[in-house]
């Protein structure tokens, strides 16, 4: 065991594995089975980079393909069934089963893991884009039409900005789900931060706890980043309106409520 672990476990027994986990992140050590070196900043950075790459590819692919579809369906008020049932069915599919499905039927590798994560990212993005556009005040849209805007202009200049908070709420759900699920990537030979978790015989308990700390941190940071982008992207007028509402009414919660009412 590494030096750091001894220091910590001598103070509080319960901190032992956590101290060991943190030590695993910052200090290279010999693997449990011996023979190779594990842990330390270099390997952790490697795993983190793969973790982020496969997640970002999946999220961006889902945004590129399904945000426009959501905008289109929402604008024309079509496909309500599609948008809501995709999210309900999507929620029930265990990610492990989905990954196992891809592995056993199509094989292992980066593309398959990215595809699984991509499928996982679709429902919140599609549903929230659709719902967000549908919730835009119809009078506002009528006014835009009356000013002579084309369909495309209405979508781009009116519906999209007004739907942004809802869209970003969906994006946050997608991001969190994808970052969390990328953890089981090593089952398909994509070496993400989940590797120490999946390979305890090499990485030991310290590696597992260290990886768990990192996965939790990466996910919380991902959520925070999307939230910051959301803040920056929300139109000023909408923010003012929300603040006014908030001070009038008591506090409200947003993300789950929106989904639950569909």
């Amino acid at each position, binding site marked *: 065991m590494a030096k750091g672990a001894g220091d910590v476990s001598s103070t509080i027994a319960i901190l032992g594995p956590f101290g060991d986990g943190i030590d695993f992140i910052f200090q290279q050590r010999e693997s449990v089975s011996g023979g190779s070196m594990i842990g330390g900043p270099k390997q952790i950075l490697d795993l983190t980079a793969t973790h982020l790459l496969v997640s970002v590819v999946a999220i961006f692919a889902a945004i590129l393909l399904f945000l426009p579809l959501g905008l289109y369906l929402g604008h024309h008020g079509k496909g309500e069934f599609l948008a809501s049932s995709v999210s309900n069915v999507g929620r*029930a599919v265990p990610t492990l089963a989905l990954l196992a499905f891809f592995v056993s039927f199509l094989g292992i590798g980066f593309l398959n893991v990215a595809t699984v994560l991509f499928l996982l990212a679709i429902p919140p993005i599609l549903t929230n884009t659709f719902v967000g556009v549908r919730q835009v005040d119809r009078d506002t849209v009528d006014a835009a039409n009356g000013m002579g805007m084309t369909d495309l202009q209405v979508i781009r200049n009116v519906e999209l900005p007004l739907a942004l908070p809802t869209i970003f709420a969906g994006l946050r759900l997608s991001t969190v789900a994808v970052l969390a699920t990328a953890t089981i990537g090593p089952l398909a*030979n994509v070496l993400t931060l989940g590797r120490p978790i*999946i390979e305890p015989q090499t990485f030991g308990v310290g590696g597992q706890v260290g990886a768990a700390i990192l996965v939790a941190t990466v996910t919380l940071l991902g959520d925070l980043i999307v939230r910051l982008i959301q803040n920056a992207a929300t139109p000023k007028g909408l923010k003012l309106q929300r603040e006014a509402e908030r001070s009038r009414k008591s506090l409200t919660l947003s993300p789950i409520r929106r989904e639950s009412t569909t």
Partner: protein
Amino acid sequence: MSPDALATLPFAQVEIEQRSGESCIANDGLCPGWIVDNLGDYATPLVEHIYLTLFSVVVGFVIAFGLAILAHRRAWTMRPISATTQILYTIPSIAAFFLLQPIVGRGFMAGAIALIAYTLFILFANITTGLQNVPADVKDAARGMGLTDGQLLRQVELPMAIPEILAGLRIAMTTTIGLAALAFFAGAGGLGEPIEQDIFFKSNVVIAGGLCLLLAAISDLILLGVQRFALPWRRAQAT
């Protein structure tokens, strides 16, 4: 996949059943005969899965309900409770399974606590939304009739919040069934265990994954039935 990579997967070599002889099984195929013969082996993981899900959702509901009532009575507690539950909701369960093990040990409790923590935000958000959506007119009328705070809550606000509460329960149920498939990482068993033991064997993956989906579909239908039964006045309306 290279032989080296295969060797690094801890359970890939573990086989649920002997798989020699028949070519379908040796080829990791989808074999109806094998499925029929071995379906019984999935009973234990299925029961573990159901038990873990029900336990987590029920305990999660009790806690979330208490917190929601507290937030409803004392408005200032809303923000800290919702922020805390939201963080618990964001932490991936798979990470929570391992972060809990040094504290509560490996096994059922590590799995259950992580899942309970995950359901809190969903249930809390829906219960409080349900309570908040009760029209002010209705509450005024009830107060005018002389109802106390407790009576108002029990006889007016809670019954009117049932649709949102049940909607939250449905989401919590389906997501927890999905997440419980990872609970074997905590040593809590469930349908994820056979999946991970032989992730390359199509028959195995299809049964275990299929049972998860079936479980989610059935539980959703049951809750939908409860919703119709609990809200007779809504049956006429198309919701």
